[in-house]
């Protein structure tokens, strides 16, 4: 019997942004660290992301945006999770996100924001230490 839980992560790109290099690199890195990664592809609405996260019963949602729409789309995901009573899912974000936006996103419920240059190992460690 396995003693540690397999961590499940949904990697999603909300909005219209098509830059998925970072999302894909992170998906692979998480896989290589032993996690199950559900990759949902481009142009996901917050509604789709939350519903997929619930059906997949993931521990973590990783959102990636480079288009600048994070201030609208990240909090919307959190809002919907709350509506569905699924706020126990850890939500992290990444992409081109100005420092000054980060406090607001965290206040909205994003657990951590990873900006360009973050090593994947740091994200892996964060997930491992924050998933109960």
């Amino acid at each position, binding site marked *: 019997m396995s003693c540690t839980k397999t961590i499940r992560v949904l990697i999603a790109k909300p909005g*219209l*942004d098509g830059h998925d290099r970072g999302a*894909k*690199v992170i998906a692979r890195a998480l896989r290589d660290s032993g996690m199950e990664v559900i990759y949902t592809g481009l142009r996901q609405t917050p509604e789709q992301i939350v519903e997929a996260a619930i059906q997949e019963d993931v521990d973590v949602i990783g959102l990636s945006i480079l*288009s600048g729409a994070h201030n609208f789309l990240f909090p919307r995901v959190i809002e919907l999770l709350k509506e569905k009573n699924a706020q126990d899912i850890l939500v992290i974000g990444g992409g081109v996100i100005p420092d000054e936006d980060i406090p607001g996103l965290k206040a909205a419920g994003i657990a951590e924001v990873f900006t360009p*240059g973050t090593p*994947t190992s740091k994200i892996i460690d964060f997930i491992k230490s924050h998933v109960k």
Partner: protein
Amino acid sequence: MGDKYSLEKLKEEKKNWEETKLNKVLSKHPERYEKFYTNSNIEVERLYTELNVQDMDYLEELGFPGEYPYTRGVQPTMYRGRLWTMRQYAGFGTAEESNQRYKFLLSQGQTGLSVAFDLPTQIGYDSDHPLSKGEVGKVGVAIDSLKDMEILFDGIPLDKVSTSMTINAPAAILLSMYIAVAEKQGVSPDELSGTIQNDILKEYVARGTYIFPPEPSMRLITNIFEFCSKNMPKWNTISISGYHIREAGATAIQEVAFTLADGIAYVEAAIKAGLSVDDFAPRLSFFFNAHNDLLEEVAKFRAARRLWAKIMKERFNAKDPRSMMLRFHTQTGGSTLTAQQPDNNIIRVTIQALAAVLGGTQSLHTNSRDEALALPSEDSVRIALRTQQIIAYESGVTETIDPLAGSYYVEHLTNTIEQKAREYIDKIDKLGGAAKAIEKGFMQQEIQDSAYRYQMEVESGRRIVVGVNKFQIEEEPPKGLLKVDPEVGIMQEKKLKELKSSRDNIAVGQALKELEQVAKTDDNLMPVILKCVKSYCTLGEICDILRKVFGEYKASITI
């Protein structure tokens, strides 16, 4: 190359040097690494000599500027005649704000415009579409109708500037709007010069702003080729782009290979549509990235030029020399910019811009230092533009043509990149061409593998990125970043409402109906799109009709 003494003697002397001088030093002081690689993982030897290029025939492989195979450049005088076009990609918020930025850039000595559109515009949604929420005006200017386009170019004489538009899936619509604005200024289409990106294949591979499935998308592209060959002789009908392929993680070799493979697909599609190669090929243009590995990048541009010339001549039997010339725009590498110590990006951009100029680019965008953080501020854009101007006017590299030709290393790299790119193209041909290779996920997989390898090299420390995994400092958060007014979406929505209540809605309905009919035939779509645009149909309305007839593309390739 030279033959004052035999290559045999050179070989012998080199061996002699290795055994006596070199090995003595190596035994005491080993080199930093066992093996050295370029940015694209081409192994780099310690020393290059004539031995590395001994099989090269100067006249066949290099030739003269303005002559086949154009390795040394597409014009006989290059920058001695005219400098490259300094063209900064810009656009954000509303048409009014972007218009201001363009006027600022032109006043600072920029010589061409480059329009960035926001994502809803690029994907064919109006600003009031639910999916546009949060995206309006963010990565570019929001254009919903001809009204916005009129404001965007207000006070800018379109017969005087050349304009590049980064627009792909709805390229035909934005081009039509541009034509319509010009007509209002009294400028006819044949006077217009500029470029539309119009490269859908790389959207499927790397950039993600597709709308329709490949087949109707290719039709729209060839419709534009045909329309422009008759009406817009100075317009570049496509900018076949390696830029985004590189940004997605490709190596320099993959950038050349996949871009030219896409190019081959467009040429084949146009020929299949009944066009003759020399009618449209002279207006094909290219768009490449410039990364930090200076000499590899220079070699990349030269290799791309030579390989394309050979492809056009040998594969497509082009006769017009202009069909064989690879003319290209360059943008410095966005993915090489760091959020850490952003001022360092100025230096990176300088190296990259230098590579583009040494590689013979026709136009250049230099990234701003703060682009890993936000849209560039006016100050940062000015520095970026000044970087080009310093290279142009102070560095001296513009005074002679293709100054790095004859460097053993650069020539060797040029040969290697050409050869490896050719191998990729052969592989893609075997898969059935670029469109099929993309459908199978071949290019995507290759690019993702390279991206992942690069990231792991950075994380292991084998690859050093200054300020990121070495020489880090504690930093204050940067100040003065540009913020797009969050009200842009609301303003655009209001404008749309006004438009829809003031325009002739009967004419709109008729134009859209006609569009639907033509879309179902094989006729050229450009005239009817032009008609729609002029009746102030919105971009979203036009795209919705086309979505209805053509369907939508759904990406299916995973990791």
